[in-house]
């Protein structure tokens, strides 16, 4: 059985304070946390580390969260990571678009840390 601390979670956001809080939260839950400050960094990191779960902001400089999602979901079908969008974009169309691209979860900002952790944990449990 694989332990949760063997699961890598990649967090991509351009807001330092959000990164800071997410890093703290997921480390505390026992995940191995990777950090990216924009979309391009997230893709590079994915290629390098193959994280199991990606927590993506959408509005990021250079490459946005949507693009990162469709990159990982189309190119790596069988071993694609689970994708969780965490975004201030919370119009119905935007959320739908996220799911269309293959996201597993879409949580609007501002989010509840407890709920986020609970839901990500559920996803992780499925993978274990």
């Amino acid at each position: 059985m694989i332990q949760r601390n063997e699961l890598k979670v990649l967090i991509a956001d351009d807001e330092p304070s959000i990164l800071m809080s997410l890093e703290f939260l997921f480390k505390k839950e026992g995940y191995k946390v990777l950090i990216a400050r924009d979309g391009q960094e997230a893709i590079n990191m994915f290629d390098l580390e193959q994280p199991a779960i990606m927590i993506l902001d959408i509005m990021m400089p250079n490459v946005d969260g949507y693009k990162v999602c469709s990159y990982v979901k189309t190119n790596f079908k069988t071993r694609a990571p689970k994708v969780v969008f965490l975004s201030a974009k919370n119009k119905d169309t935007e959320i739908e678009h996220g799911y269309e691209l293959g996201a597993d979860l879409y949580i609007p900002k501002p989010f509840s840390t407890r709920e986020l952790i609970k839901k990500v944990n559920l996803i992780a449990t499925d993978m274990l």
Partner: protein
Amino acid sequence: MNGFVISVISISYLGFLFYLAFVAERFKSKKKSLIDNPFVYALSLSVYCTAWTFYGSVGRVNQTGLEFLSVYIGPTLVMLLGWSVLRKIIRISHVYSITSVADFISARYGKYRSLGVWVTIISLLAGIPYIGLQIKAISKTFETLSGVTAGQYFYQEPAFYISMLLVAFTLLFGTRKVQANETHEGMIFAIAAESIFKLLAFLAVGIFVTFWMNNGFVDVFEKHYYQKEIENAFDFEKQTGYGNWFIHILVSACSFMFLPRQFQVAVVENQNENNLKQAIWLLPLYMFLINIFVIPTALTGNSIFAGDSSISADNYVIELPLSVSANVIALIAYLGGFSAATGMIIVETIAISTMLTNSLILPSLLENKKFKEKYTFKIINFAVWIRRAAIVLIVLLGFFYYKTVASYFSLVSIGLIAFVAVSQFAPIILGGIFWKGATKTGALVGLISGFTIWLFSLILPSLLTDTSGQYINTFIAGFFDFFAHFKIQGFDDISNTAFWSIVINSLLYFVISMYTELTPSEAKQALLFVDVFKYSTKEGQSVLWKGKARNEHLIELLVSFIGSMQAKEELEDFARKNNIDLKDVTADPKLVSYVENTISSIIGTSTARMLVASITKEEVVSIDEILEVLKRSQKIIEDNQELKIKTQQLEKLSKELRNTNEKLQKSDTIKNEFLTTVTHEIRTPLTSIKALTEIIYDNEDLGFDQKKIFLNTIIDETDRLSRLVNQVLDLEKYESGKHKLIKKNIDIPNLIDTVFLRMEELAKERNVKLKSFIHKEIKDFKADEDKLIQLLINLLSNAIKFSRPEKGWVLLTVDTSKNNVIFTVEDNGVGIPQEMQSRIFEKFYQADNQDSIKEKGSGLGLSISKKIVEIHKGNVKLESMPDKGTKVMVGFPY
């Protein structure tokens, strides 16, 4: 002066007129008009001022003082008060293709030929002496100037050759190949030039006499206003009275409109009704200018030539310069009078020849059945040759009159006699355009009665007296003695005749019209004339013709007048516009009217009427039918106008609506985008605050340092939030115009200190060096200090944020240009890529290359900065090179 030289100069002057006329005709063939403007129109109306004005006014001052002005007051009043009458006559004449005053009158009374004939005869009888008078003026002044008396025979007289040159001019520019609706562009342009010339010439003489021979107006009166005659002339008590003034004003007003040449220039040659509007003041101005120096010239002449009966006051204009050997001025005076005389002869000849041809000779020829059968389609050739012959005849008659009869009358009296004759047209024209009940019988009887009175009291007495002033026999003496009973106290002969003839004329016209019935054709023309503004537009008229006509006949008739090329073009155009098939055998009534109207403009309404009647089978249209048609066409015109107005209103409204809608939509989109962005920008710090607070709450075991970092971040994010809210509010305030500018004098060094103090910390943090430089001392620069500080802080903090990590510097300089105080903020930082430079002032736009430094502003700073500059009416300029640095310049008006 040498007679030969004067001849050469006179002929050269005429040559110049030929040249001007050619130029105008050339322009016309290029579809440009030199005469379609109010100035040329007003100048052509000034053909009213003839040699009589030029020489005679001065002469008249001697006899009747200020009364000489009455004949100029008449036209001035017509322009100032009666221009709407003139406009109506112009409109009628344009719509119904009227070619002369005779044509106008006969057309009004059912195209009644006899009226046209009588008007032509009266015009001829009044016009020939008038032309003779002009020739006399040319001849006499030639003699005065050259000092040579012409020989007894006509061929010894320069005036004869001058007359023949005028005939040539008139033939050339008055009867070129006649075409529909064609005006005499060249002639009118030459006439306008003559009007300028005669005015300048008179002013030259007047200035010479008043300022060179005397010392100004005051001096003239001091030196010369002593003679008995002059005092008498200027004394109203001793003059014949106001009655003469009134009558002279009246007849000159009538003549100004209805003299053949005046009708020609004012109505027939009018290019555009709108030209009248400015002529309303231009013509009175002309009249004023040409009369300024009349009295000084008369007074000076009277005193200088006192007792010399060989010099007539009519010649003072030339004699005065000659008396002091100012030959050049005398020559200018001669040429001024020459231009006045020639202008009159040319236009009068064209006008009368048109009448003779269109209203007298052609209709008479067409009365003859054989002639009509043979020449219906060749009338145009007759028309041209008859008119040419008429021109030669009229000028010759004028010359003949001058040689034989003219000595019986003085310059002024011939003019006034003509005025009285022409005034006989006034009742039937004015009545005709305002009163539908007037009949042709009334008009004819009125006209003939007035004319008879004129003939018997102004013409015959002079002809029937011998040299001693006695009537040639007792019967005639008795006859005239009887009429002497009708002499009104205080009226001179002219006024007396004018009064009686016009009164009797009007009375008979009115009474007989009341007792005679209108025929259908009279009723039709009455309606069309009186209600011209109602039933016709500038472009077209109502069709009131009934009967049978064949297309081929109509087309053949039209072709005979305007040639097959032009006819084909015009017919096709007409057929297309009116939906007519020209291949049909029977013609549409519209085409009949069209053809009649077109050829009317060439040979007059009466002749055209006869021609059209001769090739068609006409039926009488009853008055009821006419009224019916007119009512319909009026309704159409009204409906069209209403529809046009409605459509215009609707178009305007829908355009406004569209604009407003677009604006609303645009501002709506902008607002929506703005709102979305703002919400997003607010959510971001909110998210951090919420997440971090939850973490602190849920993790009681958090280390002290960790907790401190989190709490500090929360504080920062809260600050960011409140900053954002403030900026959004600021921006809203500037955009909606709710801001208040509190301008005061800015102490620039002090301002820089304040700003730098507030930037110190950030600069130190980023290791950036802050520098400033003031190029010039700037005084009296007014701006809103708080906003200026906000702007500079925005610009400086941006510059600091994007400066390079090593050896970064930011420089603030202040300088002035023409009207601006310019603040420049320069850094040696990362620079802004070309494609982003134009966008960085947009709201929430943040250059993509910011992320490396991760310096998140609200994205509103530059927008606000730009707004601050804008509300100061200043401007912003940006220069940037990636990796070299950025330079932002803001200029404030100073």
